[in-house]
């Protein structure tokens, strides 16, 4: 059999296995087997490429494969689950870098070989390099913000939108120039450099709390860049994998933007406004009822049904194991404990679920917002830990609130609410939370982990 046929069959097999792999992720108990299939698909695709007649020397390939494995192993095995968002952002950078470099290599080779580049291929190459380079620097900034070596707060200046628009317009002009005249290599490389600058400017103004949207968007862009590579070099498995990747990032962007009450257009163009910091309803004249750990523990010990609402504050305090321990004690007393997970509870889509799974919380106790929101009325106690905006009733009933319309967890509808909170500081959106002043709410002030430890000790003693 001819080698090219072998490659093509390998790519076909890989494409099918990738689709089966992703389909496995629709069921938690089938997911691992599915991903095994996808990994086998990847192996088949690599072997199918190595047998190609175009590949004549293997020395450097081996260097790259070994080096990549050495970098990838710690990224897969040693990175803690709390660091998952920055680790994923880092990977988007690598994926986009590979796509961009293949694009540059292909362009340079075609140009020096002297045979012209057709409009279609040139468009694909230009698209690949534009989106790839933008994703490399954009993901790098996201990585830096999440790993906290870059400022997490939005970096803004006057005329920012105008500057970004001008840069984007120049990039489009360069794109058109190079597609019409592929020999214009200065335009090609200028576009490459400009794209890296645009990537920086796109993500720098975005605050830490908006990172779930950014990561999803970068996922989508990296996928599109990979698909463009496939168009440029005429490789279907790249097109298919890139399309799957792009679709996935796109869907997650929509899910995240809906959960954060941002419009779809906002997401597409990356124009994230910084959240308004005005308090619409003043908290003046309202009283907060605080509660001691002892009293809170008493309520927990006798509750028949408890819904835990974990927020990012729980992850920051590293208190996932404590909440599970407390839940075990409540269950031992005959109470039922469920967890309500808001889509933006972590720093990336689904992050809170992973953190709780790591702390041995069974996944059938984790409920999505839509599943559990109707259950609060019949629940004795809602325990809010490190969450704020996602339980703010103003999103439901105060049209003047900046988060009005944002889907929230209806914690306020539970019979009693206990909120674990460090102090009375407002949430990311910078607005007051009426839940804290509600009649059925008690506040347990202090560090989440320390408070939970006290609750555990008290419930044990009661």
């Amino acid at each position: 059999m001819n080698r090219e046929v072998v490659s093509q069959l390998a790519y076909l097999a890989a494409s099918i296995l990738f689709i089966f792999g992703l389909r496995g992720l629709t069921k938690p108990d089938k997911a691992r087997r599915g991903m095994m299939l996808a990994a086998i698909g990847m192996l088949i695709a690599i072997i199918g490429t190595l047998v190609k007649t175009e590949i004549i020397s293997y020395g450097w390939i081996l260097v790259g494969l070994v080096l990549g494995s050495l970098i990838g192993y710690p990224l897969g095995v040693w990175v803690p689950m709390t660091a998952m968002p920055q680790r994923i952002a880092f990977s988007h950078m690598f994926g986009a870098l590979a796509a961009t470099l293949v694009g540059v290599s292909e362009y340079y080779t075609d140009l020096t070989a002297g045979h012209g580049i057709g409009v279609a291929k040139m468009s694909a190459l230009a698209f690949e390099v534009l989106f790839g380079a933008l994703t490399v620097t954009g993901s790098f900034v996201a990585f830096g913000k999440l790993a906290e070596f870059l400022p997490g707060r939005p970096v803004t200046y006057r005329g920012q939108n105008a500057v970004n628009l001008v840069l984007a317009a120049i990039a489009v002009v360069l794109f058109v120039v190079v597609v019409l005249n592929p020999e214009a290599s200065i335009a090609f490389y200028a576009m490459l450099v400009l794209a890296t600058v645009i990537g920086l400017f796109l993500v720098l103004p975005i605050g830490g709390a908006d990172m779930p949207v950014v990561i999803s968007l970068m996922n989508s862009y990296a996928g599109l860049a990979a698909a463009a590579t496939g168009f440029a070099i005429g490789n279907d498995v790249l097109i298919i994998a890139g399309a799957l990747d792009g679709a996935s990032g796109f869907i997650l962007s929509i899910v995240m933007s809906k959960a954060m009450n941002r419009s779809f257009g906002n997401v597409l163009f990356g124009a994230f406004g910084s959240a308004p910091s005005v308090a619409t309803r003043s908290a003046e004249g309202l009283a907060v009822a605080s509660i001691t750990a002892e009293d809170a523990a008493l309520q927990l010990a006798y509750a028949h049904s408890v819904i835990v609402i974990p927020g990012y504050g729980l992850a920051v305090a590293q208190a996932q194991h404590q909440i599970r321990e407390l839940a075990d004690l409540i269950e031992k007393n005959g109470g039922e404990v469920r967890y309500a997970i808001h889509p933006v509870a972590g720093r990336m889509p689904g992050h809170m679920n992973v953190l709780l799974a790591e702390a041995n919380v069974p996944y059938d106790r984790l409920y999505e917002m839509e599943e559990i929101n109707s259950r609060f009325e019949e629940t004795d106690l809602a325990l809010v830990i490190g969450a704020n905006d996602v339980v703010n009733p103003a999103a439901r009933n105060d049209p003047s609130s900046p988060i009005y319309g944002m889907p929230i967890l209806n914690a306020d509808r539970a019979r009693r609410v206990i909120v674990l909170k460090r102090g009375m500081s407002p949430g990311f959106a910078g607005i007051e939370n009426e839940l804290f002043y509600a009649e059925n709410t008690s506040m347990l002030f202090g560090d989440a982990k320390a408070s939970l430890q006290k609750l555990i000790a008290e419930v044990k003693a009661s």
Partner: protein
Amino acid sequence: MSFSDLYVFVLAAFVGYQIITRVPALLHTPLMAATNAISGISLVGSLVAAGSDRNTLSTVLGVIAVTAAMANVVGGFLITDRMLSMFKRATPSKPN
């Protein structure tokens, strides 16, 4: 590049949309790690750039691209499996 490539792209994006909208929010982080691993498929382009001795620049860029893509493949599949292995049920699932 040909029109059939466009068909492939559109159909794959459609299949992707159908499957991924059915992935529960529970598994959105593993999903993203998995698509990261799968995006390592740019290896099929970078291996050719690195190994076909076209010119020095192509080889250098190709080797860097192979390294980056391979890191995503190895790291991506390992971490996806590591995450998925942590998801356990409280009650054993009912036999189908």
